[in-house]
């Protein structure tokens, strides 16, 4: 009659199988190191838009490229920029058509909102907070890129006034400081553990015969 496996053999085998399974799953659905998101905002007759990137669990470099903007302001801040924007309702800046999405595989929340307010109020924003105006390098409505490094829990907020009735933007986000071992290595370690666990069981069986 065969002897039951020892606790050590069982643990080796279970850890080996778990490593292979989770390694394969991590490869299929696991974290990514970069993401690119594009969107078009229909501004209509509203005076501005806000575009945000919020690093929920990762740290990385975010860049937002806008097309169709007349003036651009930006800032990095602690916390979710979209939540901070909602506080601006107290100074009569309200948010419309909010579109917020999450990409957990790069650890960010991103999106945009159309700002409904007095156009003059947007130009005074740099006086109200640590908002930096961008020196427009090209023609109004041309491509402009804003880049910032954000840590976990920080966000990048960009406010733009449109040159026309629509603004397109592209968010590129590169995760920094994250790495995991490759699938091949995981499978090799997992297989080695299963073999070790099985060998222990075979050796025990031979010794007890």
């Amino acid at each position, binding site marked *: 009659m065969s002897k*039951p*496996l020892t*606790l050590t053999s*069982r*643990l080796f085998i*279970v*850890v080996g*199988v*778990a*490593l292979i*399974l*989770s*390694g394969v*799953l*991590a490869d299929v*659905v*696991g*974290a*990514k*190191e970069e993401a690119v998101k594009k969107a078009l905002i229909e501004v209509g007759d509203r005076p501005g838009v806000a575009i945000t990137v919020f690093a*929920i*669990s*990762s*740290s*990385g470099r975010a860049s937002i490229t806008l097309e169709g903007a007349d003036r651009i302001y930006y800032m990095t801040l602690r916390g979710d920029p979209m939540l901070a924007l909602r506080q601006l309702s107290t100074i009569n800046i309200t948010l419309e058509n909010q579109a917020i999405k999450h990409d*957990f*595989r*790069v*650890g960010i929340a991103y999106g945009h909102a159309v700002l409904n307010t007095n156009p003059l109020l947007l130009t005074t924003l740099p006086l109200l907070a640590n908002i930096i105006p961008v020196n427009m390098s090209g023609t109004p409505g041309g491509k402009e890129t804003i880049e910032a490094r954000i840590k*976990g829990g920080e966000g990048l907020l960009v406010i733009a006034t449109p040159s026309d009735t629509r603004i397109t933007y592209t968010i590129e986000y590169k*995760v*920094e*400081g*994250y*790495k*995991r*071992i490759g699938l091949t290595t*995981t499978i090799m*370690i997992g297989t080695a553990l299963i073999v070790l666990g099985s060998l222990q069981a075979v050796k025990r069986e031979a010794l007890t015969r």
Partner: protein
Amino acid sequence: MPSKTSPVVKVYRLVMIDSSDSLRPPGFDLMILLIATLGAVLASIQPIVEAHVAVRIILDPTLFATAIFLALRSSAGITSLVQSGVINTYMSYPLSRLGVAVGLFLSRVLIPAASLLLVPLIVAGVILWPTISRGLDNYALMYVAYLIQALLYGSMFTVIAVVSRSPGTASVASIAVYFTYNVLSLIFSVLGSSMGVSLLVDIGDAMGFNYMVYRSLLGEHVLLWQLAMVPILTTILIASILTYFTRRFEPV
């Protein structure tokens, strides 16, 4: 002729024998496979860059599974030993009652809890090694914090088991006590916040030792008594189990 084997060796033998029941396959193996795989997947879905954050993501759901396992296999398991009469065989072994109590606590609470919490961390630690290796000390510290929290639950369940001596009562009462403890912690925090009583919030937070250690690793201000509360409660409960088992426990 009296046996010359040291009591420590005897406790070790008892632990080995009893572990073959408390950790018996396939239930334990299946559980450990699932929590290890899913814990590692949870930690690798998002690009986590801090070791202690990874531990929290992996061990929060695992601690729940560990508590349920301890309620069923440890608490109800000890009472089954009483009802089946196996405890009499254990106690006929030339070992003091204290030795038997220590052996049962190790095989029914400490070893299962330590294994269930450690295996998912090993699997995730291998996959996320380049990230985890930068904070191995925090990884280990968070593991110990979760283990102490699990030992608190296991000790509560063992007290229920040795007092009730009925498998049905022990398992149901253990799960009820676990539920009550966690909901009380939440109620203290919510009531304390809404009534503006910071002491209630502090007590509610301190009931989760793993949470307090996590907060201190994040650099948040944590009071010393908040860090000490769960370890002291656990020590008192373990001392109560050993005292009760040694002086008042009736194995029939």
